[in-house]
């Protein structure tokens, strides 16, 4: 006999957002699972329950952005127009990673040098497309907003990366890259510490020679100019990445892993849960998004299919062959029900696999909505679905 499937503890999102000690909520998960919508719905619900909330979104779908009154990307938190009887408030912003990067440069270099850096082609590609810049800047923005103390709850939606883990690693990778020995080695000819590098000369020319072959001499030259101009700012990047990392480890932070009830998404969720534990980052729980729940759970898929066949073949207790067409509707509905039960069972199975591996991780479910969110009402209904006690089935 199989052991009974593990039942996970319930994730109480209302308790989480009502707890004033919760200052940061990070929604993470693989692409396409509804992270942004979840972040926005939680933010709205928290504001309606009296919190002063800012939601940082990265690349939201147009209509979702519009539902919060965000029509363009400008890197500034905008007030969401809604009446909060609770006394709470909601702001939302879309991250502009290049703008955020430019602001750091402007804040930390004198105007001439800043202008020089901003105009450098190497800087321009670094700030708009280096793998990890978006993640770094999302974390940077989080740190900035946190320091202003203007909001008592920050909800962050993580960038749509290949894997959910990218967002933890990328900021450090960028920090490491900008502070790294390699960049100094590569750009040594333009640096005052040239003599010190002489020892490494043989290795150095191999490296630069290859880079020149692969990328062309211009790239290397732009990079050298960039490094020279950027020199004094290097240390800061690593420090900021480390500071945000520590912020994420404080008890005021809560990670919510969002996943659709599908094997790939839950596999990513599983990696993420393990990783968070390894980094001592506080995991609040898993949000199982877009779960399908049949309305009539007492009739199993197998019985439903059998009943449909009975009606279609005309051999049931009260069914004569001539009467079969009259039962077409009931048969169709029974087949539909069987399919829904199978889908629900499949979803439950993958969720159980997750819980078997992580029995202590609390889980909340959001029932699949027929339509995508277009307005605050849509966000509100996701928030209340999230808070609802799961029905026993």
């Amino acid at each position, binding site marked *: 006999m199989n052991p009974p499937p593990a039942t996970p503890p319930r994730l109480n999102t209302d308790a989480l957002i009502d707890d004033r000690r919760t200052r940061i909520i990070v929604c993470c998960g*693989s*692409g*396409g*699972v509804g992270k942004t919508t979840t972040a926005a719905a939680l933010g709205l619900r928290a504001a309606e329950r009296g919190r002063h909330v800012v939601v940082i979104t990265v*690349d939201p779908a*147009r*209509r979702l952005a519009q539902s919060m009154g965000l029509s363009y990307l400008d890197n500034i938190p905008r007030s969401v127009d809604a009446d909060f009887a609770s006394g709470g408030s909601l702001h939302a912003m879309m991250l502009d990673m290049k703008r955020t990067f430019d602001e750091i440069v402007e804040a930390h270099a004198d105007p001439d040098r800043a202008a020089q850096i901003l105009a450098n082609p190497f800087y321009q*590609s*670094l700030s*708009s*497309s*280096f*793998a990890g810049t978006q993640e770094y800047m999302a974390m940077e923005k989080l740190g900035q907003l946190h320091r202003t103390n203007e909001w008592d709850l920050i909800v962050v939606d993580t960038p*749509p990366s290949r*894997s959910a883990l990218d967002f933890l690693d990328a900021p450090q990778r960028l920090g490491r*890259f900008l502070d790294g020995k*390699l*960049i100094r080695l*590569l750009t040594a000819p333009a640096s005052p510490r040239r003599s010190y590098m002489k020892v490494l000369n043989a*290795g150095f020319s*191999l*490296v630069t020679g*290859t880079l020149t*072959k*692969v*990328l*062309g001499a*211009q*790239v290397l030259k*732009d990079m050298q100019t960039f490094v020279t101009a950027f020199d004094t700012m290097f240390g800061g990047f690593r420090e900021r990445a480390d500071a945000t990392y520590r912020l994420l480890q404080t008890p005021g932070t809560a990670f919510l892993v969002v996943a659709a009830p599908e*094997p790939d*998404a839950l596999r990513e969720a599983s990696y993420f849960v393990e990783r968070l534990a390894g980094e001592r980052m506080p995991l609040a729980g898993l949000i199982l998004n877009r779960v399908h729940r*049949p*309305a*009539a759970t007492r*009739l199993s898929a197998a*019985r439903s299919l059998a*009943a449909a066949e*009975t*009606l279609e073949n005309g051999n*049931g207790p*009260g*069914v004569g062959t001539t009467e079969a067409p*009259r*039962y077409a*509707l*009931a*048969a*169709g*509905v*029974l*087949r*539909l*029900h069987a*399919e829904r039960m*199978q*889908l629900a069972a*499949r979803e439950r199975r993958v969720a159980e696999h997750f819980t078997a591996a992580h029995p202590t991780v609390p889980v909340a479910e959001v029932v699949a909505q*027929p339509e*995508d969110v277009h307005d605050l009402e849509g966000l509100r209904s996701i928030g209340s679905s999230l808070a609802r006690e799961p029905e026993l089935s």
Partner: protein
Amino acid sequence: MRARDTDWEGVRLHVVTGKGGTGKTTVAAALALALSRGGRKVLLIEVEGRQGIARLFDCPPLPYAERKVGIGLGEDGRPGGDLYALAVDPEGALLDYLEMFYGMRHTGQALNRLGLVDFATTIAPGLSDVLRTGKATEAARRKANGRQVYDAVVMDAPPTGRISRFLNVSVEVSGLAKVGPVRNHADTVARVIRSPQTAVHFVTTLEEMPVQETLDGIAELRTLGGLQLGGVFINRVRPHGVPEPDLEAAMAGHVDEAEIAVGLKAAGLPDSQALAAGLSIELAEHARNVALQERERGELAASGQPRYELPDITDGIDLGGLYRLAEVLRDQGAA
């Protein structure tokens, strides 16, 4: 009969994109299986390091090497051709490139230990894209003994949001390298991508966001110009056995609960009244979904690209399910 005459005759490189979570890898694999029918040799390439192909074909993680992972659909009593797969990572592609163009594999490996390869592929935006698309175009053109090695190459490409940038390689690289070897390489790659030998397919489900992204992606590629748009693969289509008039009535808000109850009772199900109430709710929800899906279907039709519909495999995708999808694609003329 369109058994021999498929919609994409002459296409050697099939680029498959789609919104995350729509089943892009699955559809790419099914397409590759369908293409490798009748003794044709096909290469399936993944470029994002997820090892999704290995999982689908239930084999150990793929190295940076072309491995046989399966046999295509049989046809007219003949067994299918060989399906090969390759997982391209930017590091491997850079080493490959250094070797192919400069005979520098050992140098490359030494530099890799210094972290240089990682550095070069992450720092030069576009470089890693050029290397990955370059591998696919190289395989699509590769010849041995005067014959094409592969009859077709299918690339499981990055998601829709990144596809135009990914494919627009020569422009992306030109931002950095004005002249030089990478630029030349990028131009060669771009010529193949922008030739009639390449088609870009989109995978979507009948949901709002994936459909919107598909339409946006198609519009974006049209703006770029020179790229051949391929098919729209509508994935996870759920059939329904509800009679059409009843479905239409349900869409209009009328569900005949009494008639359902009578049927349930006739089938010998207990508590038919209460059950009919529950099933009526399910039917109403279903009708609403079908109406929404019809709307999305209409929007996809307006794109003017050929469309293929793949059924939802309720039990989850396994190898058997993959072959079923491949057959569906073949029957609809996609391969």
